[in-house]
C-alpha cells in the first residue's frame, strides 16, 4: 500500500516545495514535451542531468524515487524491448522472422526507456513536493479558460479536493479492517491467487459500505453548509506567484530554446 506514490506528498522546505504549483505544473509539462521531442544523445544527457538536479533539489531521499519507479520499470523495459526487436534500420544485426535487431532499433529502444523513466521521475518530483491541495489549486487555475466552453472546472476541482482529502482516510480504514480480520484468523497474501482474492472479500465489503455512508454524510454536510455547485464561491486559499516562480519558468524556457537549437544544428 505504501508503494502508491501518486498524491503522496513528502513535507519539506526545499526550493521546489516553495514554488508556486502553477510554475511547477507548467514547467513539468514543458519538460515532458521536451523529453518527448528529444532525439539525440546530447539532449538526453542534458535532460538526465536536469532530472537528477531537480531530484536532488527536492531534498527527498532517492530511495523514495526508486520505490516510485519500481512498479513501472518492467512495463518500461517491456516497451523498450519491443521497440528494439521490431524496428528496422540501416544495419540489421539479427533478422529472424519478424524480429529484427538493428542499430536504429537499439537506439529507439534506449530512447524510449529514457523517455518513460525521465517522465516518471519528473512527475514524481512534482507530486512529492506539492501538497495535493496546492496541486488541485494550480490545476484549477490552469484550467480556468475552459470555463468559457462550459467545462465545470470548479466542480472538477472540488471533486479532486475531496478525492485527495479522503485517500489517507481510506488507507487507514483498510488497515483497520484488515487488522480486524486478521484477529479473526483471516490470512492475507497466503495461498493460491484465488485464496488470496477470497481473503480480500471481507475487507472490500465493509470498505464499500463505509464509503457510501461517508459519502452520504459528507454530501449532507456540504449541503447544509451551503455548498451549491452552480453558485459563485470565493476561495480562502490563495496562490502566491513570486519572483522565484518567474525565474523557474524563465529557466525552463531557456533550456527549451537551447535544446531546440541543439536539435536543429545536429
Amino acid at each position, binding site marked *: 500500500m505504501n508503494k502508491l506514490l501518486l498524491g503522496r506528498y513528502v513535507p519539506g522546505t526545499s526550493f521546489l516545495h516553495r514554488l508556486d504549483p502553477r510554475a511547477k505544473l507548467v514547467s513539468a509539462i514543458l519538460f515532458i514535451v521536451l523529453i518527448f521531442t528529444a532525439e539525440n544523445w546530447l539532449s538526453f544527457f542534458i535532460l538526465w542531468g536536469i532530472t537528477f538536479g531537480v531530484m536532488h533539489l527536492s531534498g527527498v531521499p532517492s530511495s523514495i524515487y526508486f520505490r516510485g519507479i519500481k512498479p513501472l520499470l518492467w512495463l518500461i523495459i517491456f516497451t523498450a524491448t519491443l521497440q528494439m526487436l521490431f524496428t528496422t534500420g540501416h544495419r540489421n544485426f539479427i533478422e529472424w522472422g519478424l524480429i529484427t535487431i538493428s542499430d536504429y532499433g537499439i537506439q529507439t529502444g534506449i530512447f524510449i526507456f529514457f523517455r518513460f523513466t525521465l517522465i516518471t521521475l519528473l512527475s514524481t518530483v512534482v507530486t512529492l513536493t506539492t501538497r495535493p491541495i496546492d496541486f488541485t489549486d494550480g490545476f484549477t487555475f490552469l484550467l480556468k479558460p475552459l470555463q468559457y466552453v462550459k467545462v465545470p472546472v470548479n466542480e472538477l476541482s472540488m471533486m479532486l479536493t475531496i478525492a485527495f482529502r479522503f485517500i489517507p*482516510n481510506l488507507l487507514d480504514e483498510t488497515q483497520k479492517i484488515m487488522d480486524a480480520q486478521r484477529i479473526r484468523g483471516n490470512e492475507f497474501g497466503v495461498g493460491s491467487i484465488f485464496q488470496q482474492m477470497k481473503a480480500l472479500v471481507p475487507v472490500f465489503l465493509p470498505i464499500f459500505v463505509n464509503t457510501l455512508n461517508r459519502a452520504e*454524510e459528507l454530501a449532507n454536510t456540504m449541503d*447544509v453548509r451551503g455548498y451549491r455547485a452552480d*453558485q459563485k464561491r470565493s476561495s*480562502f486559499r490563495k496562490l502566491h506567484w513570486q519572483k522565484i516562480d518567474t525565474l523557474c519558468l524563465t529557466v525552463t524556457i531557456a533550456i527549451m530554446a537551447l535544446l531546440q537549437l541543439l536539435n536543429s544544428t545536429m
Partner: protein
Amino acid sequence: MGKSVIKVENLSFRYDQRKEKEILSSISFTVNEGEWVAIVGPNGSGKSTLAHLLAGLLQPESGTIRIFGKALTAETIWEIRKNMGIVFQNPDHQFIGTTVQDDVAFGLENMNMSYAEMEKRVEQALQQVGMWEYRHTDPSHLSGGQKRRVTIAGILAINPEIIIFDEAFTMLDPKSRRELFSLLKEMQAKRKLTMISITHDMEEASLADRIIVLKNGRILNTGAPQEVFAQTTELAAPFAERLRRLLIKRGRKLPEQYMTETEMVEWLWKSNLPM
C-alpha cells in the same frame, strides 16, 4: 421568553410510502429564540429524522416547518441555511478542507465572502473554540474532542442563529464532552444562539432549557429537564444509568453521580478486583 424561531406544525414523515408506520406522526412544537432544546428518545423514535427534516435534507410528507417565520421550502432553504448550522455525529465524515482553517472557511466560501472578511471570521471562530494554534493542522490528525471543536468553529464562522446537534457528542470522552458543553452554554448566553440537540445522552439533555421526549414518532412529554426526568417513567434512563441504579439496589458501592457507558464499563471490569 423571546419570539419563536422554529415552529413545527403537524409534521409527519415516512421513509417508505408503502408502509403504514410513520417515522414521525403529526408532531408540533416551537423553539424560542435563545433557547436550548434537547430532543431525546430511544433509537428509532424519529429524532434523527427530525434533524434531517429541520435541515431540509428530507421533505416532510405533511405539515410545515417555519424557521424565522418562513416556511421551509426548496426556494427558501438556501436563505435559511445561511442562518443555521448542523453538526452531525461523525466528525471524520464532515471535514472538507485539508487544514483546520480551510475547513472552517468552507461555509464562508460558499457565501462568496471576501478574503479579508473570511480571514477575520475564521480567526474569530477558531479562537472561540480554542483551536487557533491548530489552524494549519490536517483535521484527521486531531483528537476526537478537537475535531468536534473544529466542526463547531466551521459553523460559528457563518454566525448562525440556530445550531442543531445531531448526536454530535456521543463519540467523545466524558472530559471533552463536558468542556464542549460549557463552551456551548457560554455561546448560548453570549450570542443568543438557539440550539437543538438531538441525543440519547441524558447528561447532555439535562443541560438544556427544555426537553422534548419522542417515542415512536410522537411527542411523549415536554418540559424542563427536572420535570421530564421525574414524570416520564417511559424515558428509560440510559442503559448505564439503569444498571447503576440496579447495582446500588443490590448493595454494590458505585459512584453517586451519573455515569456514561464508558465509565460504567471501566468501573465494571475493575469492580471485582481485590482493592
